[in-house]
């Protein structure tokens, strides 16, 4: 009996790995998104090509981290949601699912986009990634549009995500945001 209660099935906290992955991925995504916005409006110049390369490296970093994050999430149960109406729980699950899908789809379509325009991604100027599709102008244009549309969708979903976290913290005064910041488990 005692052993059972000492080992709760649902953990109270996120693991530190989960916290670190959440904030690091968030940071890299914000950098990649901002850089993508700036680069797409720049006139052709050496700076544009450099920043474009950095944008691609950030995106591939997100892809790699999200793969780790996805595996971690599937193998480590997150804490239970604080008490909230069912529609909010469903909404949160849907939003999180959509964010995971986009965190994968945005860098992946970016990689496809780069391949289709004939520019191989060479990660950090060190690791040449395989071209996922052959060079194809029309396909490249379509993939560029899809990549940008997904990125903007992520922007709005992220706004919703942040707004919900702040609402839980300041209005509902529950543990939702705090548990994502709690590095030391009490």
């Amino acid at each position, binding site marked *: 009996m005692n052993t059972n209660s000492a080992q709760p099935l649902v953990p109270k906290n996120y693991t530190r790995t989960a916290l670190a992955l959440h904030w690091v991925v968030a940071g890299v995504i914000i950098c990649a998104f901002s850089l993508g916005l700036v680069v797409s409006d720049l006139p052709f110049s*050496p700076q544009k090509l*450099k920043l474009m390369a950095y944008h691609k490296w950030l995106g591939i970093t997100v892809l790699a981290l999200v793969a780790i994050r996805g595996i971690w999430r599937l193998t480590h149960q997150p804490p239970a949601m604080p008490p909230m109406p069912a529609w909010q729980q469903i909404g949160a699950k849907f939003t999180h699912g959509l964010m995971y899908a986009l965190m994968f789809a945005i860098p992946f379509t970016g990689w496809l986009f780069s391949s289709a325009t004939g*520019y*191989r991604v060479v990660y950090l100027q060190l690791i*040449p990634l395989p071209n996922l599709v052959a*060079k194809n102008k029309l396909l490249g244009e379509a993939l560029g549009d899809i990549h940008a549309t997904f990125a903007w969708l992520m922007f709005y979903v992220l706004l919703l995500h942040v707004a919900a976290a702040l609402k839980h913290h300041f209005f509902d005064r529950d543990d939702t945001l705090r548990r994502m910041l709690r590095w030391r488990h009490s």
Partner: protein
Amino acid sequence: MSRNISSRAAALGIVLLALSAAAADAPVNAAKSSVTATFSQMKVAVDAPFKQFRGAVDFDPAKPAQAKAHLEIDTASFDLGDEDYNSEVRKPAWFDSAHFPKATFDASGVKSLGGTKYEASGTLSLKGKTQALTVPMTLKTEGDTAAFDGAVTISRAYFNIGDDEWKDTVADPVTIKFHIVVPPKH
């Protein structure tokens, strides 16, 4: 009336073609041939074709030393797959296509290296500069056509292609690859 003129022009064209054939030069089959430049942009190998070129080859495998070839490439037809990029490389800092619309390669003398391997000696003229080049190539005869395949690496700086500000983004060596298809000399 206009139909008459165009048919006369066509007839003239045929006469000119017949004359060039009489000079024993085999015209390059541009539709089946390709001339491509490969360069490294931040360690990303970029392949881009010249879409417009023409030329003639006078080559007898029995007398390679007397071989002659002339190739004329429109610098404005360099296609990086993006109109912004294409218009950039036509500017004075790069090809300066307005002043130097054509790059030419004149080969005089081919050395047999045994088997299907040959080495052509010639001169490349590009953006007002000339350079003597030895170009290794292979010859493949198939049915009624002959195909020359080869590659040669040149220095961008030597021909003043590209400003200093591009030094860090686009590497100096550029490899010109060609696949030249001609009807065989009878």
